C-alpha cells in the first residue's frame, strides 16, 4: 500500500507517495533526482548513502522512506546550493581527499557533522568518527588532512 508522506528536503517542503519497502536512497533518486546518496553495500556499512535526517547522519539504504514523514532531510546536494562550496567541500578538493568520488558525499556529510560536534578534532577522533565510511580508493590519509583543513577553515570563518 502506498502512503503519502510530507517532509522537508534540503529546506523545501515536499511530499511523495512511497511503498512500505522503499528505502530513502530510492525515494531521493526516483522521486527527486538526487543521486548523491548512493546504495553500495546495502547493509549500512560503507556510508556511501549517508543522508542527514533531523540533523543525524543515517544510512539511507537501511532507512525506510516512510520514516522520513515529517522529518527534515538534508542531502549532499544542499551543501553548495547557494552557489559557494561548503568549507568541508573546499578542504576535500584542496587536499585531494577523493579519487573515484563515489563515497565522497558520505564522507563530506559526516565530516560536516563531526565538525559541528567537535570543531577541532584530533587524528584519533577523526579516524573513529569516520570509521563507518569506507573508501576503496583508500584516500584515508588525505581525508584526515582535509578534515583538519576544514576545521581550520570553519574556525577562521567563525572568527
Amino acid at each position: 500500500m502506498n502512503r503519502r508522506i510530507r517532509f522537508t528536503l534540503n529546506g523545501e517542503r515536499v511530499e511523495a507517495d512511497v511503498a512500505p519497502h522503499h528505502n530513502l536512497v530510492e525515494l531521493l533518486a526516483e522521486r527527486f533526482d538526487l543521486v548523491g546518496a548512493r546504495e553500495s553495500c546495502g547493509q549500512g556499512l560503507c556510508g556511501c548513502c549517508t543522508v542527514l535526517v533531523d540533523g543525524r547522519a543515517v544510512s539511507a539504504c537501511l532507512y525506510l522512506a516512510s520514516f522520513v514523514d515529517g522529518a527534515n532531510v538534508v542531502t549532499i546536494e544542499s551543501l553548495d546550493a547557494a552557489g559557494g562550496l561548503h568549507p568541508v567541500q573546499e578542504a576535500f578538493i584542496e587536499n585531494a581527499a577523493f579519487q573515484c568520488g563515489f563515497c565522497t558525499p558520505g564522507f563530506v556529510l559526516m565530516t560536516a557533522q563531526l565538525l559541528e560536534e567537535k570543531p577541532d578534532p584530533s587524528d584519533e577522533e577523526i579516524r573513529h568518527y569516520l570509521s563507518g565510511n569506507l573508501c576503496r580508493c583508500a584516500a584515508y590519509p588525505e581525508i584526515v588532512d582535509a578534515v583538519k583543513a576544514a576545521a581550520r577553515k570553519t574556525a577562521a570563518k567563525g572568527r
Partner: protein
Amino acid sequence: MAVKTLNVDQVGRSVARLESRQKVSGRAEYVHNMKLPGMLYGKIFRSRIPHGKIRHIDTTAAQRVDGVFSVVTGDDVRTLVPIPYYGPAFHDQPVLALEKVRYVGEPVAVVLARDPHVADQAAQLIEAEYDELRAVYDEVEAATATIHVHEILKPAGTFPDLKYLEGRRDTNIALDFQLRRGDAGRAFAAADYVFEHTFHTQTVMHTPLEPLVSLAEPGDDSVTIFTASQSPSFVRMEIARMLGWSENQVRVRTAFLGGGFGAKLYIKLEALVAVLALMARRPVKIGLTMEEQFYHITKHATTTRIKSGVSKEGRIVARECEVYWNGGAYADIGPRVTQKSGFTAAGPYDIENVKLDSYAVYTNLPPAGALRGFGIPQLVWAYESHTDLIARQLELDPIEFRRKNILREGRPQAVGTPMRDAAIEACLEKIADRMEWGKPCYRGSAALRRGRGVAIGFKACIAPTTSVAIVNICADGSCGLYCSTVDMGQGSDTAMAQIVAEVLGMQAEQIRVVHPDTDVTPYDMATLGSRSTYHMGNAVKRAAEDAKAKLEALAREAGAEGSPIPDVFRARYGMQAGNVVGIGTFIPSYQSPDKKTGHSENVTPFWMIGGAGVEVEVDVETGRFRVTKLVNVADVGKPINPKAVTTQLSGAAIMQLGHTMFEKMIFEDGKLTNASLADYKIPGFLDLPEDLTSEFVEAEQHGGPFGAKGVGETATFGVSPAIANAIHDAVGVRIYSLPITPEAVYRAMNGLPQEDRR
C-alpha cells in the same frame, strides 16, 4: 611558437582533479545513477551448484508475477545470438549458462520488469534442475584432475599467440607459459645451498563501491551501451563480433567509474544487457548488488613453488618457479596474467639460470581476472618471502642479500630484455634509508614483540597495445581532448589535460576532457595495467603536437603569426569559425616471448618498480599484530601530477593491506559464504598503519610523455611479503599463505596446523 600562448609549467604541477566540484557535491555522473525512459531492470537468477548439466529451468512462476515483462534463459539468448560466448582471451563465457553451469553464482536466467523489486522477487521463484557433476576447486589439483570445467579450449582470435591452444581437449590448463634461461638443473646441482618453499594467495575481490552496472538501449539496427567499464573500445568490438555486426552499430559510453581496480575490464555485464535490450526492444539496466558482485570477478588465488640455488658468497645462481593461477570457471584475462606476469616470477634479481612454469587453470569457482597488479602481488608474495627466508637461513642481512643479487640497470631480466629506466636499486636504498635500516630496531617488550621487513617487486607493462587521441581546438581558442581512457579515480582526465595544456601552452583546468563514447572518442585498448599515462599519454601528447603544428600552419597561411588563437581563426575564416583537429596514435615496439624459451629482447615498453618497508608489533599471546609503520617507495618516472601519484601509491598500498591482513573469499564446497561487506571486510580508517608514507625516487622514463610512466599498481607489490618478513623478524615464525590473520600467526607460533585455505 607561431601562436601566442601561456608559458606556465602544466606538467609536474599538482593540479586538483578537473571534476573536483562534481565529486564533492554528489553531482558527478556514474552509470549507477543513469535511467532511461521505459527502462526495464534485470535481476539475475544464479546457479546454486558448482558444476552440473542443466536439465530444466522452470520460469513459469516468475512469468506469472504481476509486473514481470519477461524471463530470459540461455536458450532464449540463442534465438538472437547463435553462438553467445564472449571473453577477451577465450570465447568461453556464455551470456547466460548453456547446457552446463560451472560455478555457484553463475547467471542462469534474468527477469525483466519496470520495477526492480518485482524483478528481484520473481527471480527468486525460478527453479532449475541439474544433473550434478563433481567439481574441482584447487588450482594444483585441477591442473591434473579428470573433472573438466570445459570440454574444449576456445581461444579468442584477439591474441595470435594463443592460437596454438585451439581445440585442446580434456584439460583444465587454459594456458601454460614457460621460460628457460641458462641451465637451471646444472646450476642447482652445483649450488652450495638449495632452498625450496611453497606459497599461497587467497581469492579476493575488487569491491569497487560502485558495483558492476551496465545499461543498453536498442536502436533499429544498433545498440548503445552505457557501462561502468574500463575498456569501452573492447566492449564495442566484442559485442559487434558476437552479434555479427559492424563496430559502428555498437556505441559504448562510460561515465566516471566508482572504482574499477580491474573489476570492470574487458566485458562483464555488457553482453547480457545488450542481448536483453535487443530482445525486449526496451532499454535494460542491470546493476549488481555488492553481494552479487562477488560472483562476477575475483583475483586469482595462487600456489607458487619456488626453489633457489645459492652460492657460499650469497649469490642466487638458479631459481625455479612453478605458479598455478586459479582462474575460476571462465578464463577472463587469466591467461594473459599467467604469461605477462608469469615471466617476472623469479623476482628483480640477476639470476643466470631460471626455469619458470606458469599455468592458468580452470576451476569451479567464480572467474578470476585482473586486480591492481595483474598477478604481480601474488608473485612478489612468493619471491620476496622466499628471498627473506634464504637471507635468514644464511644469516645475511635481508637488505644486504638483496643488494648482492639485485637486477641492475642494463642487465637482462630473465626473459632477456635489458632493464632500462628501472630504479630497483634506488627504491631498495630509499626504503632502507626511510626504515633507518642501519640502526638497530626497537624489539618491543616480551609480550609485544616488534620486527621489521622489506620487500621489492617489479612489473612489465602489457604490450603491445594501441592508444589513439584527438585534440580539438575551437575558434575561440578553447580546447577539447577526446580519448577513451576511463577515469575511475586515478585522475587520468586531469593528467591528460595537463599534457595537452603543456604542449599547447594553455591552462590544464581549461581543457575539456570528453569521456569515452566509441562514436566520438577514438580507440584505446583499455584502462588497465598502469598503461594509460605512458600509452595514452604519448598519444595525447602527439595529438596536441599535431594540433599545434596545424594551428601554426593556419597562422602562417592567414598571416596571423604570433597572434592569440581566436585572432588566427578570425584571420583565416573571417569570423569565429572552424576547428583545428590534431590526432595522435601510439603503439610501442614489442617482441613476443619465444614459445619454447620465453625469451624476448623487448618484452615491455617500461618497468614499474615498487617496494615497501614495514614495522610490526605482534602480541605473542594472541597473534594479533599491527603495522606500526609502512613505507612505500616507487619508481614512477617523472610524475605528471605529483599529488595524484602519491595518492595512487598510498591508495594501492592500503588496498593491498586489506588483501594481506583480512580480505578472503571463503568457499565451502564451491559456495561462497561471505559475499557482503559485513563478512568480507575491506580496509577502513581503523586499519591504517600508524605511520604511513609514500614516496617516489628521482627517475625518468625515456619514451614516456615528459618522462612519466604508469603508477596505479606499483605500491601493491611489496606490502604483503614485507609484513610477513616483519612478523618473522618479530616472533620467528613464517606465514606461507595470505591473508596473514592473527589466528594464522597464533597457529604458527604454537606449532598448530594452519586452517584449510579454502
